[in-house]
């Protein structure tokens, strides 16, 4: 009897301990301070890190990325079965998935969603050009037939902006009016410029196993996630220090020391967050001369530009490779053309190219202050090489409009995250402003897109990177890190360029 009591007591104690641990982890509301209000909640129609960061909590894609940036299934059962000729991709769907409105997800929803994605999403259009057929084989199988093999397909299907999210077929419209997905959290209320309130979706069916980057199991510890737009970066810093925000996104790097040693928040450095670039106008004006583009490349000193833009060396890396360490795509091909800061060579190249003294118009915006700071340093290096410079500083909306007009600029400044597949890099297609048209590039890009062997694709990418330095259609300035802050109470959180809060929990 005594033995039974002891066993019962121990069992009760362990259950109590387990329930206490669970109680500690499940529940709570996190306030996430973001850089501003979203311009749309439709992740198919637009790109943008903030859009991807927020909408990935309520919309899901067939595939996503694991912690090593490999493609991993999300709503799909597994990776696609690809035919021997690389043209037919058969995708089995997970069963028992429900949308936030309670309806079940079937292949009909997936096909309707992908059709919209192919029509409206900029990444979808890359696939549409190569699509032969998209069909539902049965309730839980979808088949994509391509005209020719297209290796980046699964990476494109995995992306969280311009994203191939799966929506209920009856909710699909040119402009979405309801944001119903399959994600672990769903929208409860949105007050623009105030908050977007997400609550746990009780009908969510997580994948089995352990979390793995954006893939694997998605655990719903938190009751609510509130995305709060806080456009002023200093206010985000102060709000994190005061404990008003559990996570504050993208803070000024100067705030690092102030965040260190605080009780209610701690700094979080996101390594290799992105890379700024100077896009040259390959279509019209003086920069169509390859010699002049090479002169600009020779003149620029990336180290000084990055130091002016990001301050401490902890927040940038002087690196000419288009992928940082840790990516399978990393290559040193062509990087001798990077960070030259050589005004004499630049002057010589410009003279050879027949430079006539006209100012190079650099189009930039102060909405991204680091763009502007880099432009100022670049202007001094170009002047040292005898090149005249005109800085055209406008707001971002104007820049986006003007860059579409080849007559209005010679160089414009933008930046990008490190994309999981190089085929997605924005200035590669000739349709992107900058209009890099090159037979050698076209040939290599076709090879990159149609080659299904991963190792061979890495080698092809290496050749493309070398070509970028040889033809200088754009100039990569370097890598930059980003600073965010999180509450010490926020556990289970993984730092990312697109931070996510499933798997995260609040400790008491």
């Amino acid at each position: 009897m005594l033995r039974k009591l002891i066993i019962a007591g121990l069992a009760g104690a362990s259950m109590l301990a387990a329930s206490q641990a669970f109680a500690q982890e499940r529940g709570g509301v996190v306030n996430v301070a973001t850089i501003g209000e979203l311009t749309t909640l439709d992740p198919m129609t637009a790109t943008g890190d903030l859009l991807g960061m927020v909408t990935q909590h309520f919309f899901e894609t067939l595939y996503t990325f694991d912690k090593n940036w490999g493609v991993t299934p999300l709503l799909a059962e597994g990776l696609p079965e690809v035919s021997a000729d690389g043209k037919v991709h058969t995708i089995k769907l997970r069963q028992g998935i429900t949308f936030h409105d309670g309806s079940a997800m079937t292949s009909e929803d997936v096909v309707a969603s992908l059709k919209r994605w192919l029509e409206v999403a900029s990444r979808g259009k890359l696939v549409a050009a190569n699509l032969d057929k998209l069909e539902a084989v049965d309730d839980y199988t979808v088949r994509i037939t391509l005209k020719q093999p297209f290796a980046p397909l699964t990476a494109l299907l995995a992306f969280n902006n311009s994203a191939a999210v799966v929506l209920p077929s009856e909710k699909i419209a040119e402009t979405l009016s309801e944001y119903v997905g399959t994600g672990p959290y769903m929208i409860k209320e949105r007050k623009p410029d105030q908050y977007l309130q997400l609550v746990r979706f009780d009908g969510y069916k997580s994948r089995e196993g352990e979390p793995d980057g954006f893939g694997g199991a998605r655990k719903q510890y938190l009751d609510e996630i509130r995305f709060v737009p806080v456009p002023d970066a200093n206010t985000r810093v102060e709000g994190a220090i005061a404990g008003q925000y559990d996570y504050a996104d993208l803070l000024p790097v100067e705030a690092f020391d102030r965040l260190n040693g605080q009780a209610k928040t701690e700094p979080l450095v996101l390594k290799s967050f992105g890379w700024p670039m100077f896009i040259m106008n390959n279509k019209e004006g003086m920069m169509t001369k390859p010699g002049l583009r090479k002169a600009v490349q020779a003149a620029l000193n990336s180290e000084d530009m990055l130091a002016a833009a990001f301050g401490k060396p902890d927040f940038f890396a002087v690196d000419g490779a288009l992928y940082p360490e840790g990516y399978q795509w990393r290559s040193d091909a062509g990087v001798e053309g990077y960070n030259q800061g050589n005004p004499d060579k630049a002057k010589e190249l410009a003279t050879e190219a027949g430079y006539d003294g006209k100012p190079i118009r650099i189009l930039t915006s102060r909405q991204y202050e680091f763009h502007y700071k880099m432009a100022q340093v670049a202007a001094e290096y170009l002047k040292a090489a005898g090149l005249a410079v005109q800085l055209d500083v406008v707001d971002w909306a104007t820049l986006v409009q003007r860059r579409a007009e080849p007559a209005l600029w010679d160089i414009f400044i933008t930046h990008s995250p490190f994309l999981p597949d190089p085929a997605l890099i924005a200035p590669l297609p000739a349709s992107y402003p900058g209009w890099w048209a090159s037979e050698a590039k076209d040939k290599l890009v076709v090879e990159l897109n149609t080659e299904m062997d991963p190792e061979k694709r890495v080698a092809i990418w290496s050749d493309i990177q070398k070509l970028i330095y040889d033809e200088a259609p754009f100039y990569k300035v370097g890598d930059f890190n980003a600073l965010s802050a999180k509450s010490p109470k926020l556990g289970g959180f993984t730092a990312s360029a697109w931070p996510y809060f499933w798997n995260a929990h609040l400790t008491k």
Partner: protein
Amino acid sequence: MSRYVLQRLLGMLTVMFTVVTIVFIIVRVAPGDPAAVMLGPDATPADIEVLRVRLGLDQPLPIQYVYFLAQLARGDLGHSIFLDMPVASALLDRAEPTFFLTLFAILIASAIALPVGIMSAYRRGGLFDQSVTTLTVLAASIPSFWLGLILIQVFAVRLGWFPVAGYGGPDASFLTRMSHLVLPATALGVVSSALITRFTRASMLDVLNDDYVRTARSKGMGELRVVMKHAFKNALIPVLTVIGLTAALLVSGAVVTETVFSLPGVGNLVVSAVLRRDYPVIQGALLVIAAIYVLINFGIDMLYLMIDPRVRY
């Protein structure tokens, strides 16, 4: 008197029509394209053109103008391109924080400026007056966002008395929401008090030497009564004008403070709409702001009627 009111009403309508037209033209002449902003950095020109057609931005300007006027005639301010809601609803959402922020800021500014201005005029040239002159120059020179950041540091971060920013979450009570306004209203109130203090002082100086004040004193009336009843009442007209215009300015012009404190106010709405080129919101909001200006001016004119009998004739 009714002719005076009618004249003012006609003037209001003319101003409003002019504002509508100018806003429509300026918004569209300015560079930038809502379709490009909406589609993000990777959009191709073809994508942008398709969206322009969908939003009706490909239509000639005169046709867009006629649509706009017809819409206004129906009392419809349009539909926001980015917020996906009627402009009127977007403005209504912002009415509460903007109204109370303006009200608190004006109350704080008046509570500081009126007694200080009166005292300063009464003790003209003395130490108090000189100190007030220095302090008002200082207050007028302080950027409200800087004062806002200092207030955040002291009262929100160190003391934890007030929230740093925002306007409360989904479950925030009215009192919680109001607590979010204390620091921004103080920042705006202190900065605005400088101008009102200067006007109060100048206006009081004008009347304190007038004959009727001397007469009141010679009748043996107490100083407090002379200053408040005879002098201050007559000094009130220019002061009221400044308070009214400051209030009107705060409705739309508290943008920087609203941004620092992440308040979902009207000024914030207009600036983000300008950055995104959300034409309907820019037009609708500017129209409403212009209407508020015009109404406040009309209200001040009507107050003149009550305070100063000469206006009636």
